[in-house]
């Protein structure tokens, strides 16, 4: 956490002292401080609100604003959470895990192989095929919903977790291949040449030389794909039936009566975001790296 995000400004500090710097010196650093504190509060308050609403009883939420809890913390109760879990929400939490973990691992494995071919094996038409992959980066999910629903119906996997996983794997591939290929290209040629000289089969070079070296890129990709699948609503909405639905779809079905369902929706939404948030803080460095590699090249 301290590395990437922190390093950039530290590195840039000397440069930037000039730019906005001297303007701000004149305005007074205090104004900037106060402004940014306000912005940070502005960004934190909505999530804090969700957390507090999830910890208050329905009657309390209906009578006063959540911010009143700050003056009477005794109102905290975990009853919403226990009610939610008793109502079968645990199953959809588990479904989210069952969808996200395989979809993430499969994307990493399949994309790493393809990226290796694009980076280190020469074959006719390589650049053209890679351009197709880049073109597919921005293809909207909507384009595949109807055809794949038909295909799944034909194959008998409509509504299953398998169908949802495969959809996520396919749509995760263009970005994954793009990210890993760009990283693989940067691996020193000598390392591969040496291994090839030793007569190591390509498969083993991939598994023992390139894959381990690419750990940072794979970590970036892993966190991205994990968040993308974990947080998905649309794919699940179309392809997962009620038994196999992840948390997002389960919560969405409660949205219609938002007012009366806050005691389900608030703890549910909070449960759904706590794991991504923990992962995000733990692997934040890789997240930022992936962002930079994926967007600004």
């Amino acid at each position, binding site marked *: 956490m301290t590395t990437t995000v922190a390093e950039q400004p530290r590195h840039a500090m000397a440069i930037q002292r000039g730019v906005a710097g001297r303007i701000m010196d004149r305005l007074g650093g205090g104004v900037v401080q106060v402004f940014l504190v306000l912005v940070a509060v502005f960004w*934190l308050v909505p999530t804090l609100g969700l957390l507090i609403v999830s910890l208050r009883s329905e009657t309390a939420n209906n009578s006063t*604003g959540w*911010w009143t809890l700050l003056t009477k913390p005794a109102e905290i109760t975990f009853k919403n959470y226990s009610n939610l879990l008793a109502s079968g929400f645990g199953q959809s939490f588990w479904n989210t895990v069952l969808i996200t973990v395989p979809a993430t691992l499969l994307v990493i*494995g399949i994309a790493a192989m393809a990226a290796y071919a694009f980076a280190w094996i020469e074959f*006719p038409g390589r650049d053209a095929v890679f351009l197709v992959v880049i073109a597919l980066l921005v293809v909207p999910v909507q384009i595949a919903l109807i055809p794949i629903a038909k295909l799944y119906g034909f194959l008998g996997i409509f509504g299953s977790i398998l169908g949802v996983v495969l959809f996520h794997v396919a749509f995760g591939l263009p970005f994954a291949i793009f990210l890993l290929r760009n990283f693989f290209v940067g691996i020193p040629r000598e390392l591969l040449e040496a291994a090839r000289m030793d007569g190591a089969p390509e498969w083993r070079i991939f598994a023992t030389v390139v894959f381990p070296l690419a750990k940072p890129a794979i970590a970036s990709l892993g966190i991205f794909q994990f968040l993308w699948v974990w947080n998905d609503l649309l794919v699940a909405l179309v392809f997962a039936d009620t038994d196999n639905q992840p948390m997002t779809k389960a919560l969405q079905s409660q949205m219609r009566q938002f007012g009366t369902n806050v005691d389900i929706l608030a703890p549910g939404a909070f449960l759904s975001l706590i794991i991504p948030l923990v992962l995000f803080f733990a692997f934040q460095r890789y997240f930022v790296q992936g962002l930079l590699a994926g967007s600004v090249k």
Partner: protein
Amino acid sequence: MTERLDGPQAPGGGDAAGEPPGPRETPPAGVTAPVAAAASATAAVPAEGAAPPRLGPSPRLAVMFLLPAVLLLAAWMIYPLVYSLVRSLFDASGSRFVGLGNYGSIFTDSSTLTTIRNNVIWVVVAPVVVTALGLIFAVLTERIRWATAFKLVLFMPMAVSLLAAGVIFRLVYEQDPDKGVANAIITTVHDTFSSSTGYPGARPRENDQAPATVQGGAVVAKQQAQPGRPVLIPLVGLSQDVVKDAAPAKAAPADGIGGTVWLDVVRGGGGTLNQVDPQEKGLAGITVEAVSGSTVKATTETADDGTFRFSGLPAGSYVIRLPQSNFTAPFNGVTWLGPALITPAIIGAYIWVWAGFAMVLIAAGLSAIPRDALEAARIDGATEWQVFRRITVPLLAPVLLVVFVTMVINVLKVFDLVFIIAPGSVQPQANVIALEMWRVSFGGGGNQGLGSALSIFLLLLVVPFMIFNIRRFRRDES
């Protein structure tokens, strides 16, 4: 139970070990099997070629490495593209060819036209605001010591699902100021600056003896106000609870232009009509206007005992009027989730989610700016604003463009936030193309021909950015 445990292990473990996870149906099995096939084929290829002419592996090997990815991309992306294109030329049932009819109805049907209008609003507003905020925050965080913490706070919403973000903002935008924090803040600010508490329902008696009457929502005294003749404005229609804590009403002093506004009702009955009785309560904080002709000459407010007095008003006779604002319901905040504001409200949530992304990318770009250019300009006597405007921003232009383009692509596909934040009754007003595509195809619309046309339309909208990405990649590679 076993199913649950086996679920993640089969595909996950299979992937890592290079074994096919063995799904039940044919295409998925075909897709994953080459992982194992590639392993054995790799070993076989060099032996087969005996003496390889060059050190690199053979192109045939590439096929093995690419096969799983190519199969998945072909089956889940390329084939659907073709299928959707064809399907969009047929009607809802899929049996009758309608040519471009579905595309025609996208541009004639009023509900799809609304979605296009909303997408235009989104594309015009959201990417610009997100990029501008990202730039401002990135530059300002250079000035603080807690930049890391600040960036983390702003960046955090990116990890949260859009569904959760939607629930979060449904709570923020709740109409009731006792539930929604946005209206709680707005009403607090409003009440701080506007002291009028408001007496909804208060009105004069409707008879000839009543000294005041209602004209266009305002209460107007029948008697003209003159110095030394206090104006009496007795009102009814308020519950005694409202004035429980109010001071007793008093008759206004006879000097100057003034009078009394009070609740002309005695708890438990009694008292004289249209006269200030000691048990009756004054109405404090009512805005009173002195009108001459059709212009307001002076404005004042009633005191705790209901009396008011215009000081410094030239002698003459005036009509005393209590404007309508005294009697409207108290300000109850903004209707964020109503038809008028729903799209701006959702864009607000979108900005909350994405500003951190823009900030982090732009901050990375800032750190890469060569300091010589800035120093040279400064030595030449450029002001800081000029340096920022003429050097920093142009040098950042490539990053700003990338952020902007990424946001445009993202905004074109916006779905979850609109679906979650807009209440069912205003979804038609908040609708966007991506949501309409789902609604028409799966959400009860029952028209997959139109749905396919909408998905192709969406694809066409992102094609320019597809070309942008390809160009950028080719430039970077060469």
